[in-house]
């Protein structure tokens, strides 16, 4: 599969991929907002027909100026690979590209993400393949009342 930076033309494909695959969905303006604000850190995988089969949608959190306790860091809002395109290591490739861009362009000190407590496959990917660690548990983070694990990976 073709793995590359997400372009404006990909936004509809990313939205469709997300809707097909994940329970947390977003309207177009949300996807647009990320692309318009941080155009360098979201990536896609596409098949030979140009269909988006996987993506990572990321943002940068900059702490308020008076808050010295926080650092600039990246956050993965959504990452997904269509079930039929698994076992190609796409999620890992997408994540690594995004992390590299977060660190080199924005000097992000770490990257964070939320994952459903019950999503064992995703947790295994983040922890075992990508080296994330659980930073805390966020109670009832999801709309249906499920807890989220807040995971982190240092980029420095």
């Amino acid at each position, binding site marked *: *599969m073709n793995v590359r930076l997400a372009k*404006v033309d990909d936004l509809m494909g990313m939205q469709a991929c997300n809707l097909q695959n994940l329970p947390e969905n977003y309207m*177009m303006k949300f996807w*647009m907002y990320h692309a*318009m604000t941080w155009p*360098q850190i979201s990536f896609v995988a596409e098949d*030979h027909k140009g269909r988006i089969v996987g993506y990572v949608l990321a943002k940068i959190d900059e702490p308020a100026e008076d808050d010295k306790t926080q650092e600039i860091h990246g956050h993965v809002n959504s990452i997904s690979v269509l079930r*039929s395109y698994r076992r190609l290591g796409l999620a890992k490739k997408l994540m690594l590209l995004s992390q590299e861009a977060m660190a080199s*362009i924005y000097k992000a000190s770490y990257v964070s993400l939320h994952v459903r407590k019950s999503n064992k496959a995703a947790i295994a990917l983040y922890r075992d393949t990508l080296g994330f660690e659980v930073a805390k548990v966020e109670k009832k983070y999801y709309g249906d009342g499920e807890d989220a694990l807040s995971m982190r990976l240092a980029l420095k």
Partner: protein
Amino acid sequence: MSKSLGKRVPLPSKEASLFKELLTLYETRQIKKGLKTADLILKKFPEHGETLCMKGLVLTHMKDRREEGLELVKKGVRLDLTSHICWHVFGLVQKADKNYEEALKSYTQALRFDKDNMNLLRDSAQLQTHLRLFDTLVDTRHTILILRPNQRQNWVGLAVAHRLAGHPEEARKVMEHYQRSLKNVPDYDIEHSETLLFYISILVELGEFSEALSVLDSNSRSRAIVDRTAILETRAHILTKQNAPEAEEAWRALIEHNADSYETYRGYFESLGILFNEPNPEAVTKLEEFAVQNPRATAPRRLQLNVASEEKFVELAKIYIERGLVKGVPSLFADVKSLYADATKRDAIERIAEDLREQYAPSSKASDIEPTTYLWTLYFLAQHYSSQSQPDKSLALLNIAIEHTPTLPELHLARARALKRAGDFIGAARAANEARLLDGQDRFLNTKCGKYLLRAGMTKEAETIFGLFTKKDALSPAADLEDMQSLLFLLESAAAYRVSGRPNMALKRYIAVKRAFDDFEDDQFDFHGYNLRKFTISIYLKLLKWEDQLRANPAYISAAIEASKIFVEVSDDPSIVTALTSNSQLTDAEKKAKKKAKKAASKVQEEKKAPAANDKELEPAPPKDEDPDGFKLLASTDALEQAANLLMPLKTLAPNNIDVWIAIYDVAIRRKKLLQAVGALNHAAALDPEYSELHVRLVDLKQRGM
């Protein structure tokens, strides 16, 4: 009128300060207090135009008082035609209604009476960009820059305006002037970095390649440009345009950075003048080097298959397919299928896979083969035969595979697909459901199952299945999918309703697709200001380009054509509507059930509204569905006008789609627009004079005596 044009009498100081307070209250969105304050002023000065406007503006933010507010704003404007506040408020209200043309007119009026008002100028610029009025946009941005030259974004704003208006040389001048005036750019400033990349893109557009390159190189050395990938890419593109030998090195660096991007390989080979779209041994060799250097990358190995031929292809394809099967890559078939355009490659792949099946079979002697490898081989071959219109072979293989491992959802999905291709939609839906049941947590399987149910015309069942993953507080699963702009669902659902004789619901779905595209178009509005503040210019210019092509998307084209067909059918035979509505006369039991559902739905509505009681919440709750069955829509008195509007953008965005022209003819001829109708048929004839639908229309034209 003449009286109202007379000199405005200023408010006495008490009321004047109340008015100031009113402005602040509105700005901080304290709606109820604002209303009280406005009424205090109006008690003494009921004809005060500016206060009336402000009161109207406040009312437009209150539930069910929008119309009343609008009337007050209009009245206020009439009473004080020379007040910039009145016109500004009028513009704001029109803008909120997405009536951008009229809003811009009001802003222009307001500026006549307050020409240096920064808010007015900025909003006007935003409207002008949205309406693509680039010449006047340049004027507005120029005024803004002259008033506030110290704000960096105002320089960039003018340059962007020039660029959009098609004056790159002016844009360049502005950017150069801007850079000379710059002082104290902080180190590692992403905004400055993006601005420089924008400047370089202007130089490239002007064909000033060496200048562009030297600006790029010096600013990357000084780390003023911080986006390394963008640097590499811009370099590679410029060097290629210059036919410079360094281009190869630049593309190589990009491949090293990401060895899975097809575009990069394409750029690399183009820069070397090596053909990349046809058999080419040189490309095979180069790709081999990249594959060895980047063992984790799959792109070079896969791209080799595009450019290899004959024995070399067989050799490489065998390794590629074997590797995929051993790893159990479910997408392997989808991945190689694009090679099937070449029949010899297709046949070679079939032979390779069949050989491997024998080799991997449990009866064979090879002992180190994982049983799953055999399974994935069967899966691969089943998909292959299904794509080659051999459903029996495909299904037989899948049956063996499913017997071997009944719990792999992919096998059931492949079965569903083979059955669907063979025309057994009910069987396909059943198979997809079996896949879904094997992993109820997986939305992908759920979506597939819902889609297959729709293909089988089982709209109700499909909605139940989709509902397992849609938001529980939505009016219905369909409403949630519509809110989330699922074009896949809307189009599949529409087609299902169309086939099952419910054009009302089909039309409702197609119009929902149209609305999604209207929203996509509208979504850009805020970014006209936002991206300038963020200095993310390059991506913003791409957004504008994308928006201008938006409705060339196949989902829109299909919805527009199908909806217009339904509109045409109803206009030819309005009895369709009455027949459908009387058919939908319900039995008592059904009526009861419907009533219950309605009650539940309105409860959901109430709950949604609850937080809006907060004074600061300005957004009115989403209106409930006034036309749940689409009958009102189907009975539209302006059906043909709606159809014409749907098709309008396609004249320029999809001029090579013959069905677009046929649909345009069907609508135009009924609207008695003879010239348009004949023109559409001429376009169609130019695309394909033998097209059967075209001949039907030519006969139709004659029969209408034209």
